[in-house]
Structure formats: C-alpha cells, structure tokens
C-alpha cells in the first residue's frame, strides 16, 4: 500500500488545500454590481441609461440647492446675489416660514399655542396608535380634543369645559344603559350630551371670549400647514368610526338603515370632493339665516369627513366580506348579541384586514385637504398660490415653495405609511 502511495499514483492529496480568497469578480461590491446591475446586456443598458438620468437630474439639482440663497428679502435680491449663477432662492422659505406653517393671520405672539397642541398630539395619539403603552394614558387622549380646541381657538375656557362635560355625560349614560339595550344607551347618550351643551351654553356669559386668558382666534385666521394638519387629524379620526358605522349599516337587515347607508355612501362617492367643498363654502351661506352661520372650518370638516367616511365604509365592507361566514356563526353560537359579536369577534378581524385600505384613504384625505385653497382658505398650498406668489417680492418663486410643500407632506404621509406597516406586522397572528 505504501508503494502505491509513493510511486504508482502521481499525486495524492495529504492535506487540505489552504483556503484562498474568492476571485475578485465573485466577491464584495464587484459581485453585487455584476449580479444586480450588469447581469445581462439588457440590464447593463438599463443601468447605464438610469445612471445618465440620475446624473442629469443631480447635476442640475445639486448646484441649484448648494448655491441656494437663504438671507435675502426678495427675489430680485436673490438674483443679484447669485449674479447669473444657478441657485435656489430659499430666502422665501426663511422669510415666510411662519406664514407657511400658521397662515398669515394667526397672531404671531400666539404661535406657541398651535405648536404646543401639535406636540401634545403625539402624547395623545401614542396610546391609540401603540397599544402596548399603559392604558391609563388614554385619559389624556380623551381630554386632548378639548385641550387642543382651547389652545388653537382660545377664547373662554368655559366652552371646551362644557363640551367635555357633555361628552362625559353621554359616556356615562351609555355605560349605564348601554349594557341593557344598545339603542336606549345610544340615543340616551345623544340626548344627554345635547342637554348638557344646551344648558352649559346658556350659562356661558355673553362676551366671555373677549376677556379670556387666551386671546380668541376666529377660524378665518387659521392657515398654513397647521390648517392641513388640523383638517387631516380631525377628519381622519371622525371618519373612521363613522365609516365603521356606515359599513355595518350597509350590511344591516333593517331596510331603513340599510338604504340610508347605501344612499349616503353611493351619493357621496359619486360626487367630487371639490363640489362638496363649494357647497360647504358657497351654498350653505345661502341656506342659513344671515345672523347664524356655521363656522367655515366646521363646514369643511363635515364635508371632508362625509367624503372620507364613505370611502372608509367601503374599505371596511371589503374587510367584513373577507371574513368566513363561520366567524359570524361562531359568534351567534356563543350566545353573543349583535354589538358584542361585532365588538369582540367580527370587527377586530375585519379592521385588521382593512388597515392598508384605511391608511390609503387617510393619506389621500390628508393630501386632499389642500383642496380647501380653492374656497379661499389659506392652507399651505393656498398660502403659496395666494399671498406669497402674489407679493411683489416673491412672485415667480415656484420650485422652492412647492418643493418645500411637497417635502412637508411627504414627511407626514411617509410617517403614516410606515406606521401602518408596523401595525400590520404587530397584528399578524399567522405564522410563517
């Protein structure tokens, strides 16, 4: 055998070949580029074309942004500073930044109020959005709408307090009677709330808003990105419960409720939002007597809420339809009544399925709030299109302003979308 190993066979490996590094073309960045960017002729061509496009965009955009001017007081001064070079005139942002955020009529010494309301929004929203947080935080969420109203509109402290008491009375009535009969609790709650508001409203002394601690700010003076955020947050948080009610109503066995819901949804979905906004701003001022009009902000909130509620109702109906019939039957066989079955079994599953759709509607709605600029409300886009571009200093500055608006909206919408993806992962109960 030794003879064999030494003589008759030319070579026998008696140890491992030492490991050598992989060929340069099969490792690291080179491999990644070869595999992903230049794997075939077609891919290579696309890569080169894409690279050219990116280069063209960046070669235009980067010097434009890099040379940007931030400190001049008008467009013509920007042009003087740039002296013919390519460069953005960001000065409009630095000079009009507060107007972009708060509108041009909000008293400038009161900017801290909406800012504080905005920060508190995160505190109030956190327990709703992240349900791992302690449930006690929800108490602040319940107070937040009234607090935010007081901060933003100011005026007498009595108004939000009475409003809060009305809601609290409604909740109390519902808790007490709702267990026995849902309808009794529901309508009792509504009556209780209106009774408290009526009595409380009568008790607020005339002119209380004038000597209030926080200066009263009428709705007409709201504006800027603040208005978009306020409309977006208010309308989304109102339209989700309304949408759920509409979706359930549409599936109801009671013909009256069913038809009301169907007609509402189909009518609102069949009308463009801008038409509804025109009705809100123009037509309603004819319908109401001249001395009692409903606040313009409220009119717009009602219209946008109706609009998005109809869409959300259809999204949720999709979720309800996706549940197997067995779920409904299982709830019945456990002896649960309708509200219990919905609350405990059907809706948690249906809503989970509907999350992407609801978020889609919410993002769309948030961007649709810019439509209020056509009814002469000065939201972010309204501020840009109206006062800022019409001023003699800044007429002609389009890219900088609209780019900034796009950036603000992108930050919020991307945040919403990231949250919804987190929520879907968090709620996933199936195992992969």
């Amino acid at each position: 055998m030794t003879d064999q190993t030494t003589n008759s066979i030319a070579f026998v490996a008696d140890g491992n070949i030492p490991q050598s590094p992989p060929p340069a073309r099969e490792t690291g960045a080179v491999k990644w580029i070869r595999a992903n960017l230049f794997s075939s002729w077609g891919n290579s061509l696309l890569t080169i074309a894409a690279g050219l496009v990116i280069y063209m965009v960046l070669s235009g955009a980067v010097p434009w942004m890099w040379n940007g001017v931030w400190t001049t007081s008008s467009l013509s001064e920007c042009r003087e500073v740039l002296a013919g070079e390519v460069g953005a005139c960001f000065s409009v942002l630095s000079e009009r930044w507060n107007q972009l955020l708060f509108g041009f009529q909000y008293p400038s010494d009161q900017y801290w109020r909406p800012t504080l309301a905005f920060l508190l929004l995160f505190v109030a929203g956190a327990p709703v959005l992240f349900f791992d947080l302690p449930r006690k935080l929800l108490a602040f969420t319940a107070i937040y709408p009234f607090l935010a109203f007081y901060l933003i509109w100011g005026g007498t402290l009595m108004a939000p307090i009475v409003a809060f008491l009305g809601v609290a009375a409604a909740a109390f009535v519902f808790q007490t009677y709702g267990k026995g009969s849902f309808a009794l609790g529901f309508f009792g709650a509504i009556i209780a709330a209106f009774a408290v508001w009526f009595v409380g409203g009568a008790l607020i002394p005339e002119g209380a808003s004038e000597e209030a601690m926080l200066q009263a700010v009428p709705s007409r003076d709201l504006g800027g990105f603040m208005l978009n955020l306020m409309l977006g947050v208010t309308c989304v948080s109102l339209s989700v419960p309304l949408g759920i009610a509409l979706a359930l109503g549409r599936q109801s066995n009671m013909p009256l409720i069913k038809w009301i819901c169907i007609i509402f949804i189909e009518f609102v979905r069949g009308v463009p939002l801008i038409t509804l906004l025109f009705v809100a701003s123009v037509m309603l001022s004819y319908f109401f007597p001249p001395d009692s009009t409903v606040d313009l902000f409220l009119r717009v909130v009602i219209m946008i809420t109706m609009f998005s509620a109809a869409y959300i109702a259809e999204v949720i109906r999709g979720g309800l339809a996706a549940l197997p019939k067995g779920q409904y039957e299982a709830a019945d066989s456990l002896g649960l009544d309708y509200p219990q079955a919905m609350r405990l079994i059907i809706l948690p599953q249906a809503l989970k399925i509907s999350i992407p759709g609801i978020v889609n509607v919410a993002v769309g709605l948030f961007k649709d709030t810019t439509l209020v600029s056509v009814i002469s409300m000065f939201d972010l886009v309204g501020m840009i299109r109206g006062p800022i571009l019409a001023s003699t200093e800044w007429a002609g500055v389009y890219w900088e302003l609209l780019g900034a608006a796009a950036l603000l909206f992108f930050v919020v919408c991307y945040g919403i979308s990231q949250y919804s993806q987190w929520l879907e992962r968090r709620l996933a109960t199936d195992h992969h």
Partner: protein
Amino acid sequence: MKKSVFFGAMTLAGLAAGAAAAATLDDVKSRGKLNCGVSTGLAGFSAPDANGEWTGFDVAVCRAVAAAVLGDASAVEFIPTTGKTRFTALASGEIDMLARNTTWTFSRDVDLKFDFVGVNYYDGQGFMVPKELGVSSAKELDGATVCIQTGTTTELNLADFFRTNNISYEPVPIETNAEAQQQYLAGSCDVYTTDASGLAATRATFDAPDAHAVLPEIISKEPLGPLVRHGDNGWGDVVRWTMQALVAAEELGVTSANLAEMSGGTNNPEINRLLGSEGTLGEMLGLEADFGAKAIAAGGNYGELFAKNIGEDTPIGLARGLNALWTEGGLQYAPPFR
C-alpha cells in the same frame, strides 16, 4: 379634536357676522368693522405682506371706505375671495363690498344684481413678446403661437382681434398665470396675452424684464371697480363718493402731505366741501362732515395710491395711461362735489 370643533362652532354660531338686508351702513357702524372682499392674492392690487398686513390698490379702496365710515383705516376685516366665491360672498351678505379687480359688465351689474360704484382701474387685454422677436405691433403677429388662458373672455377677444385684422394664430391653451409664465419663458409660445396689468406684473418677475415688451395694442375694455349689493343705494353712495373723493382730491391737488393744512379751510370752496370745512355733504351720506378728509388720510389721493402700489416706481411698473386724470388725457373724472 372631533367633538370640540363641533361644539366650538355651535357656540361661535351667530358670532360669524352675516348682516345683509337694507341698511348696510348701519350694520357697518354698529359692527365697528367693514367686511371687505378682496382677491386671495394679486400682485400690486391685494396681497398680505410678511407681517400679514394687507396692501395693494384694491385694498386701499377698502381702507378709504373704512376710514370714511368709521374714522379708522384699519377697521377692515379683509375677506379673501376667489374668482368663484366672490359673487356669492357679496350676495349672501358675508361682505359689505367687493374690491377685487372685477370687470364691470352688463350681466354682472344687471343679472347678478350688483351695483358697480365706479372704476378704480381701467384695464384692457394686451400682448407681451420677447424683444428679440422684433415685433412692434400686434398686427405683425401673423402665424404666431399665443399662450392664452382657456375659458376666459380673453380667449374670445383674441379670436375677434385676429379675425378682424385678417391674420392667423395658433393658440397654446394654458390654465393659470403661473403656468403661462413658465410656458412663455420656455419658448412654447411667442406671445402671451392677458390683461395689461397682469402682463406688467408678470414681466416684473422675470429674470430679465427688459428682454420683453408689452405691445401698444389694447384689444378689450376691462373696467375694474368695486361693487356692492343691488338695492341698498345709500350704502352704494357711500362707497361711490368715497372713491370719487380720492379722485377729486388728486384733481384739486389735495395730497396726504398738505391735507392737514387744507382741512383748516382754503379759498377754494370745492376743496372745502370735499374736506368738510364747508357744506353738509357728509351729513347727506349719513357720515361725518370730514369723511372725505379721512378717506384721503387713509393712504393719500388716487394718484398717490396708484404710485405707491402699482405705479412706475414699483416692481409692477404700470404707467398711468387710461387711469390718468381727464385733464391729462386719461379717463379718471370725478363728478363735482356740491
């Protein structure tokens, strides 16, 4: 935020003023504020500045009326309106008067039931071309591509003008002034046509305004002026004669500089009647005797307002043209104050 808004509006309901009906003057006086409808933003005519103060040529009319009625040029609630909401805002009583570069036309005056109280700016449709085109008259524009806002009277005027002059053109339809500006600068069209004041304001924002020229032809009449609701003639008179007081002041040489001196009385009885040191003109309107003096004090006479907001020294750079006094070849002509 949900229920609070609902409730807030319920308590605020009734605060939002909407006084209409006949006696607008009394409503304005008891409210202590004039609700004046203006444009959401038109360079030189009405726009809020960086501090949120409204300024402009139309805004000045509102301020003059507020000064004449209430004695305070800042007692104005400016209600911004768009082209689509302006008439309903006035008809529904949300605003007391509208000063928003609105063209005085037959159907607006008669059919929509408004009263135009005068003309504070005579506008007309014009053409802007790049100078390198070498065109000096609109009649040389045969075969030109023209940027034109769709669905406006300017579109119809344009077609009429080219047909009567027997020349052809190719329209490039655009939606807004901003879009037109970009298209025109990018060279998509040889000519941009809209109201001459708009052309001047647009040209003022260009990188090189001197490379573009506004042609001398004005092909339409656009008399712009403030308007009030039909049926309240007392209020209409207040706005009309406040505006005329500004024009008369320029005719008579009353300026914001010499106003205080002249208010004491001069040897010209017309000035004395205008400024209230003689006669009872203010009383006839239901105003103080010195309403004219207060209106002029708000921002100066017509010529001063023009120069300050849209005149040749401003970025807008409009010449007086038709808006010069009748004594200087223009159309501004105040009826006698007697």
